[in-house]
């Protein structure tokens, strides 16, 4: 059926019988589903990853600003600042205090960002979706990484 055909016959009938493109073969939804369903998981995993460093920062704040001394924190602080740790333990601490928050940042960034290439105008467009939980985890993780880095720098100076 061509355009002329449509014009000659009853337009409504032809519209009723119009064949439409079939898109039933699409498979891209699998990737989309993983990304969408994992957004909440990303936030949850992120929270687990930043839990220990966050606890340390909160305890440090309680000790320094509010002068609340907890024996647990003092021991933890000594343990973290101990220069004579074995290399394995040192690596574990680095992973917990720097690696995991950075991983939380990466996972949550991937959960909320999309990248598009505009070939016509040669532009890269980055879209950030507003997902409250992911953004909060992202923000806390970033603050933690900065604070831990500052702590390590100060420790090295001292």
């Amino acid at each position, binding site marked *: 059926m061509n355009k002329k055909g449509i014009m000659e016959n009853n337009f409504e009938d032809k519209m009723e019988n119009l064949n439409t*493109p079939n*898109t039933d073969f699409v498979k891209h*939804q699998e990737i*989309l589903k993983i990304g*969408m369903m994992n957004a909440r998981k990303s936030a949850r995993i992120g929270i687990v990853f930043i839990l220990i460093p966050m606890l340390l920062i909160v305890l440090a704040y309680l000790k320094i600003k509010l002068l609340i001394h907890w024996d647990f924190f003092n021991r933890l602080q000594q343990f973290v600042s101990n220069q004579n740790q074995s290399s394995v333990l040192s690596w574990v601490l680095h992973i917990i205090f720097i690696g995991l928050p950075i991983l939380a940042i990466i996972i949550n960034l991937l959960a909320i960002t999309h990248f*598009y290439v*505009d070939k016509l105008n040669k532009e890269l467009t980055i879209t950030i979706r507003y997902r409250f939980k992911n953004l909060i985890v992202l923000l806390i993780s970033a603050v933690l990484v900065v604070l831990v880095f500052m702590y390590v720098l100060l420790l090295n100076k001292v």
Partner: protein
Amino acid sequence: MLTLDEEKQLLEKIKENPELFGKIFDAYYKPMFNYIFHRIADYDISRDVAADTFLKAYLNINSFTWKNVSIITWLYRIATNEINYYYRKNSVTKLSLDLLGSQASILFEFDDYQTEKQLIEEELRLNEDFDRVQRSLRKLNIKYQEVLSLRFFEKKSLKEISEILDKKEGTIKSLLSRGLDKLKIEFNSAT
């Protein structure tokens, strides 16, 4: 497709375990993508709009109140709003959608993006009449595009369209009649 009973039970379970939304996604993604693609006729943009549609549905699923109407009706409504939002946002490109053809491709994906896109574009080429009708349809007001595409592309009944668009059947009937006249004029003057 899920039965109404299955949907109702699933919605109850989703309240306790949101990840079960995946079943709704699996059951209705293809018809929704089909609808969006028929409205937009661009693979990349349709993917984006479909993603936004399901993300919105996923985030708001607990606010969905069961009224003995299939959840796909609600999904059609969200998709329609997303399409309208896309057109409002791109009111300049709406007039010349040819420019948009394949301008956005998604990075960092490992699926058969190019193959799927080529197959869909081939489908569009094979359905030449649809392509022409679709181009004419895009020149009409959104309110006509909505009803005409649901009626003639998705083969929905008046009742279904009225549920999807939340308008009276009489209103849909008159929009269809006026829209069809306008589409005919556009179509005939297209070449």
